[in-house]
């Protein structure tokens, strides 16, 4: 191996051994997926926050609950999570209220159960794919490291039958092996950052939902049975 050899990235990748190539390919696919989820989560969470704010404004502006409910039912495919929770709770409440013989606490409990169920569902939707980001963040550096270790083993093995070992004989092998680690880190770092950021955002949203549920239950409790 010549010292003046041009260590261009592409030649390094092409010359890598099969295992290292597979590792790089896997990491590249993972990186692509994780970036896709990062962007889709980013869009989804931003939208959920916007819709939540919009609905909170509508709700606390003192509109009639029946009007709000009708609006939510009419545009059920575009409404946000908080509006869904409201819709489920209010539907359950009005159903129970139409039945005779339910006291106030029974009405509110029924509404709360309905809201809780919708809340779980919405949270599940919001948190979807987040676990993928978490695994990418924690595992892909190890996968990359595996590729690197394998490549370095390869580089050193080719050194075994050389009389006078110089750095230039191992350098290209190590360089190509380190590319695997680089790709792993490239996949992992954004995934970890995005995971932390998104789980924080989702936590804040869930707190908003829960406090809304509490407040809405109080309002329903005040309305009481007919």
């Amino acid at each position: 191996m010549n010292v003046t050899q041009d260590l261009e990235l592409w030649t390094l990748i092409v010359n890598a051994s099969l295992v290292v190539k597979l590792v790089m390919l896997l990491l590249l696919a993972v990186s692509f997926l994780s970036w896709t989820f990062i962007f889709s989560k980013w869009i989804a969470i931003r939208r959920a926050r916007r819709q939540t704010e919009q609905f909170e404004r509508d709700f606390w502006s003192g509109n009639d609950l029946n009007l709000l409910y009708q609006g939510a039912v009419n545009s059920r495919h575009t409404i946000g999570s908080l509006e869904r929770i409201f819709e489920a709770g209010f539907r359950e409440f009005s159903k129970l209220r139409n039945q005779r013989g339910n006291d106030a606490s029974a009405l509110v409990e029924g509404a709360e159960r309905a809201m809780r169920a919708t809340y779980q569902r919405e949270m599940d939707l919001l948190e979807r794919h987040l676990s993928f980001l978490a695994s990418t963040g924690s595992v892909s550096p190890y996968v990359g490291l595996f590729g690197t270790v394998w490549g370095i083993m390869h580089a050193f093995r080719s050194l075994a039958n050389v009389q006078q070992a110089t750095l230039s004989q191992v350098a290209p092998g190590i360089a190509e092996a380190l590319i695997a680690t680089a790709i792993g880190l490239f996949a992992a770092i954004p995934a970890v950052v995005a995971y932390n950021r998104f789980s924080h955002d989702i936590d804040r949203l869930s707190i908003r939902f829960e406090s809304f549920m509490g407040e809405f239950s109080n309002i329903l409790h005040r309305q009481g049975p007919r």
Partner: protein
Amino acid sequence: MGYAESYDRFEERYEPGIARALGFALVVHLVLLAILFIGVRWQSHRPAPVTVELFQAPPPAPAPKPVAQVEPPKPAPPKPEPPKPVPKVETPAPKPEPKVEPKPEPRIEKPDIAQQAVPKPEPKPVVKPEPKPEPKPGAKVEPKTKPKPKPTPKPKVEAKPKPQPKPSPTAVARSELRQELAREEAAIKAQRQDAELRALLAREASARALATWTDKIRAKIRGNIILPPSLIGNPEAIFDVVLLPTGDVLGTPRLRRSSGDSRYDDAVLRAILKSSPLPRPDDPQIFTRNLELRFRPQE
């Protein structure tokens, strides 16, 4: 309001903007690849313009070569006499036969001679053509009257007419010969000078490569020298260093000539040891085990 209403939406709903997210992810990766492939060049071509220029200097030599190659044959015939005997021998053959034939023959002979001793052929053509046409008018009558079998008299006859009737043609031929000779000698000289120049260039090139190598070594060592305070003047310290092919310094460098300041000597010695392994030469050919390194505090 059936119960189904609250459930059917769960499975239907998909992540919003997944297509956009895919596009973004693609863009991110393409940008990264572009940066990596265009922006990052690891250990790209080394700048070696100096050596390239050095080896380009000789090329002018090849141009003179062709001239020199043609000329070297000529130098051998420096004596104008050899050509003369040859025409004499040749002339007898052509004369008995018609005039037309002699021409082809000399031509055939010339190449042979040219191959054996290249120098001779060229002078001949010059001499032959001139004497033949001129002597013929006078000489023709004589050879015809004289019996053909005698080859010896003919040359004599020919030889006589040449000097007597045409002193000027031979003189011209000789002067031309001389001129040619002078040119050939000049060419030989040029060739020799050329070869010397090339050898000199080669020696210079290797010397320069050695110099750049030692300069590199000294530059590395100089970076590690911690100059002792209150150093007076600019004394020179000379060290003999034994190197391994890997650039490692073998043993302790020997102080060949002290700078006069033992603190400076020690500082240089420490710097040499600290700089091991020293840089290796670009061309492994010029590597030598024993190097003489000179150091001055102010360089």
